[in-house]
């Protein structure tokens, strides 16, 4: 069964990834105890801090301790504030998920109809214009799109806030208003990229023999494409969506900065600034697991979409 095999692969890669993340941060220069106590700290105080942080133990022990914690849901304590990391991480992750999820939905809602349109009309001016616009859109970096959107909708039109975040359960209207611009900045650029993939996938399907068979049965061009084309065109598009989700998680780090959104990205940047290495480690690990999980889901989706892969 493909799902089982993919699940095993997911577990193994996650384990390897945790080792890599830990090793990378362990070899980085900089002593958290030194950073926490400042340059004037006495050796005795430093040693005490290292003992508290656990950084005086051998690396394999530290790794085993960290990994064991991860598995039991204990992500350790911040070197800087001394508070447990897990609750804060989850709060921040929720914010980032809202942002990335909305961006993904925007991207798909824009790209699927637009790409299909560009494919069906690829010989007409309208189709070529959509392709050209998507090429251009794909070349715009997300943060630039963000700044432009703020300029238009926040500064000039004063329709939406230029930044900040309201949790959904506090004030849903304010939450939505705050979500729109950052999600659009992330989503529209991805939509442009995705449009090109949707276009080429639909073009392939339009030329497929089975689509001609469907037409020969008496299905109209649109009905044939919807009934027989879209599902087959979805396979390459899902691949790109999976890759894009990873790009979006990383892209969110920057967009959260631009819009002052308290997500995972800003947590990561703050933690790097204060050398709060456990937090960095946990955030990176969470991002890695998220990306691997998405890849796993993409593989499972393949099997759903393409019956040939079910027994592979």
């Amino acid at each position: 069964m493909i799902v089982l095999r993919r699940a095993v692969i997911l577990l193994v890669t996650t384990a390897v990834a945790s080792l890599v993340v830990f090793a990378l941060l362990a070899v980085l220069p900089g002593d958290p105890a030194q950073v926490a106590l400042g340059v004037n700290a006495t050796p005795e105080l430093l040693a005490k801090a290292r003992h508290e942080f656990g950084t005086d133990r051998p690396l394999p022990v530290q790794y085993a301790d960290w990994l064991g914690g991860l598995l039991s849901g204990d992500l350790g304590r911040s070197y800087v504030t001394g508070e447990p990391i897990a609750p804060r991480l989850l709060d921040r992750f929720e914010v980032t998920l809202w942002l990335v999820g909305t961006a993904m939905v925007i991207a798909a809602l824009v790209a699927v109809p637009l790409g299909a349109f560009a494919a069906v009309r690829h010989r007409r001016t309208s189709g070529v214009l959509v392709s050209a616009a998507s090429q251009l859109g794909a070349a715009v970096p997300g943060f630039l799109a963000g700044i432009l959107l703020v300029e238009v909708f926040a500064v000039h039109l004063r329709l939406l806030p230029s930044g900040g975040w309201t949790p959904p359960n506090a004030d849903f209207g304010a939450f939505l208003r705050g979500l729109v611009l950052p999600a659009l900045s992330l989503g529209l650029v991805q939509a442009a990229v995705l449009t090109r993939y949707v276009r080429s996938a639909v073009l392939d399907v339009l030329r497929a023999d089975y689509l001609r068979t469907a037409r020969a049965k008496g299905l109209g061009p649109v009905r044939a494409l919807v009934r027989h084309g879209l599902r087959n065109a979805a396979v390459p598009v899902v691949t790109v969506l999976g890759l894009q989700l990873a790009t979006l998680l990383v892209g969110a780090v920057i967009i959260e900065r631009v819009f002052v959104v308290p997500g995972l990205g800003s947590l990561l940047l703050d933690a790097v600034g204060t050398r709060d290495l456990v937090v960095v480690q946990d955030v990176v690990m969470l991002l890695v697991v998220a990306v691997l999980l998405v890849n796993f889901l993409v593989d499972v989706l393949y099997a759903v979409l393409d019956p040939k892969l079910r027994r592979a």
Partner: protein
Amino acid sequence: MLAVDRLGVRAGELDLVTEVSFTVSAGERVGLIGESGSGKSLTATALLGLLPEELTASGSVRVAGVEHELVGAPERLLTKLRGSRLAMVFQEPMTALNPAMRVIDQVAEAREVHHPGRDRVLVEADALRLLEQVRLPEVATLARAYPHQLSGGQRQRVLLAMALANDPDVLVCDEPTTALDVTVQAQLLELILAGVAERGAALLFITHDLAVVATVCERVLVMYGGRVVEAGPVREVLTEPRHHYTRGLLDASDLESTDEHGRLHAIPGTVPAAGEFPSGCVFRTRCGRADEQCADLPPWTGVPDHGHACWHPVGGDS
């Protein structure tokens, strides 16, 4: 039942099929033969109005009982006729079925499209009956399978079931058996013949295999360079060909006759690429009998369904 008059297919300025005219009556079986690149498949695709966007058709295609001319007919009309009055079996069993849909659903769809509102249970029963008619083995299991789980012959049976689903008046088969083993081929040919006989349908059968034409068809059209170069009853065309191209095809298929080196006969040269056919007689660059006169287009001698286009017919002028 089907009347084709001066059908042409063009890609921009390039003529791919020129002045193809023929008729097929109800219950009649007509073959269309020629090498790859002679325009057979394009002719068939043009009949159903399914040419790729970049190609345009001209001339006339008419089906009995339909007021409207089919070339350039509105898509709505064509959609209604395809699969009900005019059906087609394509040549690639490997790619002609949707890989993501169960076989029975694809057959059921062919019924459903032309019987909107018919109960889903009945439609499925229809589909199962059609699959039984084309003798799909282990029909209960294989009907629920996906195309990749079927063999080439089984897939071609499914395509035939789909084409016959609404008892079409005209069935077009484009090299339906070319990709199959000889033994499977014979079974499928029988099914096609039985299918059209039961329905009294007109059959247009495209192939490059002369033996198949001889088994299946009553009349035959020989195509080369996008033109019909000879037409007539199968027996006559295959025993007493008039056009040198037909002669060449027959010699190439005759396993008992060889040239002075003991090899099978072959037509010299290869089929030119589209647009590279000579002016005048399209075959003159490969024809041993060609002379200056052949630089002019030879006129059609005889009636549309029985005649040839050659200045120097095999066996002389009669």
